[in-house]
């Protein structure tokens, strides 16, 4: 292996200076120590890293976060408010038991990470840092490793049957200088079923890892909206491992945010598994910068698995959208069906769309494809609407919603999909004034 560049190690030691190792029982100490050792070999991302070609890691690397003003949501109905759900609240990345519902749900065991970490033996050790470590090859994701080594906060969730309600993690942002490290572990036993909802900006700077083990025949649905705070910055990772005939579906809506990097690493190990990863982003660079990066890596290592990636971005006023997606089909993963779509709608001359959709295929009986497009709003569609008396701004918004519909359609639950669409419409309307 090539020697690690000095800037990467320098960035790491600067970052480590401000962090202290959390206390914990045997299993947690072991997991964190191993992660720290792995991290010291890789260092933190540097500007010339190929994997960070489209996004500058500097502010995510820095020892201190850039302060971020708390966004005022007053007057808006809470996200997922209409859904019957179990609410668990984190404030600036710290679990708030008082603001949360009791951690009791039929078919599910929920524990705060710091509690689970105090035990000497815990089932979570089979997942915590394990999926993250598997996701480091062939591309390193140091922020996730840093998270494994230093996160104190998070939840440890084991799903044994069909969860009675969706679990909703609400991330409130209170302090302008908060720097959150959150690490969740979710394990779905064979046949189990869980919907996980996440919303809120969490902190001025957020580093979050979600590890999900989806057992045989289990279903995991994940929908998140990443807070509307303009100045927040976030790097998030999802690591999922899929068993036979299991389903994993994840959708993310991002509106606002100075910098967002969402990585999703899915490994399909059981035959006939299904993974859908989707994202809709809407960015306006006029108030503050908007930089949004989706980085996805799907590995097919079993027979007849299906994966879909659908990412849509609407960009205006100098906003930057990036997508790096990869489908890796390992030798023997025959009958793979892999699909990848990345599209952008550029609403003005100043915005930028950067894409790298990759296929790496070592099996012959597969159907894999990707499509990527970028362009301005459809003039004909706009003309059609205007000729029917719809004002230009409203017509544009209608076309924006229509453009994002493909990604939103990936949400399994029709009620949640409707909620998301309604919210987008309301935000756009508000923007028009």
């Amino acid at each position: 292996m090539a020697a690690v560049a000095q800037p990467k190690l320098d960035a790491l030691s600067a970052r480590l200076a401000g962090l202290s190792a959390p206390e914990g029982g045997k299993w947690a100490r072991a997991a964190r120590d191993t992660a720290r050792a792995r991290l010291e070999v890789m260092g933190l991302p540097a500007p010339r890293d190929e994997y960070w070609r489209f996004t500058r890691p500097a502010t995510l690397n820095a020892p201190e976060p850039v302060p971020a003003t708390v966004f005022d949501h007053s007057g808006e109905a809470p996200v997922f408010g209409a859904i019957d759900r179990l609410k668990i609240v984190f404030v600036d990345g710290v679990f708030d038991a008082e603001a949360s519902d009791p951690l009791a749900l039929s078919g599910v065991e929920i524990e705060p990470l710091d509690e689970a970490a105090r035990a000497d033996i815990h089932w979570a050790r089979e997942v915590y840092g394990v999926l993250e470590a598997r996701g480091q090859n062939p591309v390193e994701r140091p922020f996730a490793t840093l998270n494994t080594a230093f996160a104190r906060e998070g939840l440890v969730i084991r799903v044994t049957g069909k969860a009675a309600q969706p679990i909703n993690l609400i991330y409130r942002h209170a302090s302008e200088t908060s720097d959150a490290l959150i690490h969740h572990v979710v394990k779905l036993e064979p046949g189990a079923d869980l919907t996980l909802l996440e919303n809120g900006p969490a902190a001025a700077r957020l580093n979050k890892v979600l590890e999900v083990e989806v057992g045989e025949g289990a279903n995991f649905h994940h929908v998140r909206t990443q807070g509307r705070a303009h100045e927040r910055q976030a790097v998030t990772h999802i690591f999922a491992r899929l068993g036979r005939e299991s389903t994993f579906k994840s959708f993310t809506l991002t509106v606002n945010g100075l910098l967002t990097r969402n990585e999703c690493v899915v490994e399909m190990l059981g035959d006939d598994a299904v993974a859908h990863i989707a994202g809709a982003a809407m960015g306006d660079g006029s108030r503050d910068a908007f930089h949004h990066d989706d980085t996805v890596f799907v590995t097919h290592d079993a027979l007849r698995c299906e994966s879909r990636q659908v990412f849509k971005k609407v960009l205006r006023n100098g906003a930057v959208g990036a997508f790096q997606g990869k489908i890796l089909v390992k030798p023997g993963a025959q009958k793979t069906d892999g699909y990848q779509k990345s599209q952008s709608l550029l609403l003005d001359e100043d915005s930028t769309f950067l894409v790298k959709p990759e296929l790496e295929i070592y099996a012959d009986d597969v159907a894999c494809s990707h499509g990527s497009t970028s362009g301005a709003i459809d003039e004909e569609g706009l003309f059609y609407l205007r000729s029917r008396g719809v004002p230009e701004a409203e017509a544009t918004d209608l076309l924006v919603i229509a453009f994002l519909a493909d990604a939103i359609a990936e949400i399994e639950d029709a009620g949640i999909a409707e909620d998301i669409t309604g919210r987008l419409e309301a935000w756009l309307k508000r923007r028009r004034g």
Partner: protein
Amino acid sequence: MAGTDEVVIKEGVEEDTVEAVRSLGGKYKYGWETDIEMDYAPKGLNEDIVRLISAKNDEPEWMTEWRLQAYRRWLEMKEPAWAMVDYPEIDFQDQYYYARPKSMETKPKSLDEVDPKLLATYEKLGIPLKEQMILAGVEGADEVPADGANSERKVAVDAVFDSVSVGTTFKKELEQAGVIFCSISEAIREHPELVKKYLGSVVPQSDNFYATLNSAVFSDGSFVYIPEGVRCPMELSTYFRINAENTGQFERTLIIADKGAFVSYLEGCTAPQRDKAQLHAAVVEIVILEDAEVKYSTVQNWYPGDENGKGGIYNFVTKRADCRGDRAKVMWTQVETGSAVTWKYPSCVLRGDDSQGEFYSIAITNNHQQADTGTKMVHLGKNTRSRIVSKGISAGVAQNTYRGLVSMHPKAKNSRNYTQCDSLLIGDKCGAHTVPYIEVKNNSSRVEHEATTSRVDEEQLFYCRQRGIGEEAAVALIVNGFAREVLQALPMEFAMEAQQLVAISLEGSVG
């Protein structure tokens, strides 16, 4: 390493097919070598070798200095490792950088004076160096009347043998049209003003590791200048032959199409079959001024190595066209069937407004071949258009990667790109990969990219088999259909050869 005997044979595949796979290494038609006395520069690379190459070509001082500058930059550079290819480290000191047939010591004044052995070599390759009407060796070429103009088709050839140009045909006739077509070493001596102005202006001296090496040690290559408003009266072609052992070939091609000019240029290449891999690092620069058009077609058929991956050519090539003027147009077409390792990205810089770039490619890899190839379309001017059609076909234990960049700069308003890259896999031991980069920095431009990977369609195969077509012939037919968009873009001379090559390269790959 996995040999053909480890390939899982599907049911119903005939023993003949399996045998054909085993003997594929011996099927390379151009694997023989010419027994000819050679002059070598001493092995290895240092400033003295660079000076020696320059002296052998009777170059002026400025050229020697240019080479030395490149050499010094090269010493500080690292070999790139990002391509999806894997080969043993190259010992750059264990190579000859200059090899010339003894008989070429004094440059022959005309083709009549060229060593008969050299002429025979090209004759055997199907490229006779006489001023014939059509390029021989292309069966059926004379049977296609097409638009009736066929009987008038002429192709001028510059033949490069190891490090030197052996001769150029039709020079007189081209001169009458004002076209300069000669070896680059001759151009440096005879047309220094053109060379000085354009050499390194598209691919800078230290562009990348291999281009820099080439800038230091290039020995020969072709030079083309088409003056303003001239449509080149015939197709131009360069045929590269590596013959000497342990010798790298570093040719440099410079094509300049002045305002309103047009030229179609063909390039072919072969090498003998040897156990030890050989290096080929070429640079092609094309300058296209206002309203001019250049078509550049390549059939790359270097020795690919044997069925166990032994030997073959490492083909590390930098090709770039600069559409410098408004409405300039370039079209790259390549059929890549040879070489053990290919690293090649013919690119278009669309600087002039309304300029156009096209890239059509078929890359076929079999046995242990590895190809990492694609293109870059850099849109700088307004209303620029580009189109990429790439077909990768992988068989045996080969790896085939498409790597490309489409970049729309903020000023490239109203530009357009369409990219389609398809991969076909034959057998379950090979790999096909796609690594496109798309960077869009304005909204009036449209970029579309599509890619698919699949196997030979069972239904199509069944349909052909049902009609009595043998399995291998059926696969060749399907592959030809798969690649037809690219084959159609080739000049007629090459299209015929390419279709046959597609069949040969896939022979025995079924199963």
